[in-house]
């Protein structure tokens, strides 16, 4: 095993373990903190994949904005931080079976894809990943339409939030 494989295994294990803790811990703040750890693990995986931009954006948006909002909401709304209800319901075995089936299906599909076993190539030092990404986002034959649609969606969400929060005097 190479060093990068060992690092990947450690990070992946850490990510999965904290993801498991998010759903099993009973303290809501602890769950939020484990969620932060999970997101951080994902950011490290991006960094291992030489996607520095995505890694940093993951930290800015998910850890710096979304998770902090979760913590805010929990702190403002809950007096008791412990969740006392049952953690499983009657459908637990069916759910587990479905999850297993989806996992098997996905692994099967991925193993038949030829990029699955390809070795990542070393990127040249002056490869401008961010410039490429930026151009792809605004060029009409790449992702211009999804980009614009997403921004309209966000604008709609913004207007909706203002409408819901606004009280007429």
């Amino acid at each position, binding site marked *: 095993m190479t060093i990068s494989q060992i690092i990947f295994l450690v990070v992946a294990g850490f990510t999965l373990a904290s993801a498991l803790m998010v759903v099993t811990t009973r303290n809501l703040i602890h769950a939020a903190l484990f969620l932060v750890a999970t997101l951080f693990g994902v950011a490290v995986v991006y960094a291992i994949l030489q996607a520095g931009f995505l890694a*940093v954006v993951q930290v*800015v948006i998910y*850890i*710096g*904005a979304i998770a*902090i909002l979760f913590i805010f909401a929990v702190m403002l709304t809950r007096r008791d931080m412990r969740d006392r209800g049952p953690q499983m319901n009657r459908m637990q075995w069916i759910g587990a079976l479905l999850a297993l089936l989806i996992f098997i299906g996905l692994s099967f599909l991925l193993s038949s894809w030829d990029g699955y076993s390809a070795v990542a190539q070393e990127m040249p030092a002056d490869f401008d990943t961010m410039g490429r990404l930026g151009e792809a986002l605004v060029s009409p034959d790449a992702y211009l339409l999804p980009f614009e649609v997403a921004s309209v969606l966000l604008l709609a969400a913004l207007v909706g939030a203002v409408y819901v929060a606004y009280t007429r005097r």
Partner: protein
Amino acid sequence: MDWVIWLIWIVKGFFLAMFLLVGFAYLTWYERRALARIQVRVGPNRAGPFGLLQPIADAVKLIFKEELTPAKAYKIVFFLAPIITMVPSIIIAAVIPWGPQEPQVKLFGYTISLYVADINVGVLYLMSIASIAVYGIVLAGWSSNSKYAMLGGLRSTAQMISYEITLGLAFVTVILLAGSMRMLDIVEAQRSWWFVVIQPVGAAVFLIAVLAEVNRAPFDMPEAEQELTAGYHAEYSGMKFALFFMAEYQKMIVVSAIAATVFFGGYLGPFVHRWPLLGPIYMLIKIIILLFGMIWVRATWPRVRYDRLMAFGWKVMLPLALAIVFITGFGILLAQELGDPIYLTVIPAASIVAGVIAVIMVNRALTRKRILSYEPR
């Protein structure tokens, strides 16, 4: 020879961390002396010549103070919060360049670059670490299990999140002007003109947002003793409190270094490309001047009321920052399309107009009553 490169990295990182730790101690001394001078006092002058040993005496005192943990505090988080505050304030300094890449500095036959890390998303790295720094405050406030600390923590967090957007937009103007997110490219792009000349309002917006981001006066809500005893660190004492204190002063140093890098030409100065070791000296001079600016502001302005702080952040700073980003992009496009860099002068002219409009609006809002204040129904 692989291990030598690792050794150089480790030594450089260690040196940077030590610089921040010692800098913290002497920044407290610098601040107390400068504040005293502004307020016509003497300041600490007993321990050692000019009171230079005062920080050491303070450190010894803080170490021997009793560490209290409130009985109902959430122990693990309470213990972790000062550390989570402290760590980002050190690692954020990793991407700041201290000297030019060319010519190279040679030491014992090895090339030593005058930065710890050179990543192509340097500015975004700064933003991401700044957004992690919020966690220390929110967790400290929550884990103390006290109303004052909780309210103080929520208040400071709201403040930091709000001003982070403005800070990010100020960074966007720099990225647009430099055409890169690498800190080294940003500094090299300022060889003809510092960005503070091309985008003066952007620099002003950046410096104001940074003051709010590191919780300094006049935005020092966490230290508003009259209102919430002390805010998020009300329940902390001894070395744990010292860690919060340390984080604040280290952040001051680091944001001064960042401001120097992105707007005030970084390590650039006369002859720096002949003797690259002048770079760190120029950086240090710029950092000390910017730090003095922060201390001066603290000595001069009273604390802003909290609702006005938020109103200022959302209703003045954010629109102004957006306008500046637009103006910068427009100016660059104009210069590109018409093929003459003289059109870049549109940027300072138009952004100063935008800044003046913002100031006039604030003035009108403040002289007309009950518009910036929240009216309880």
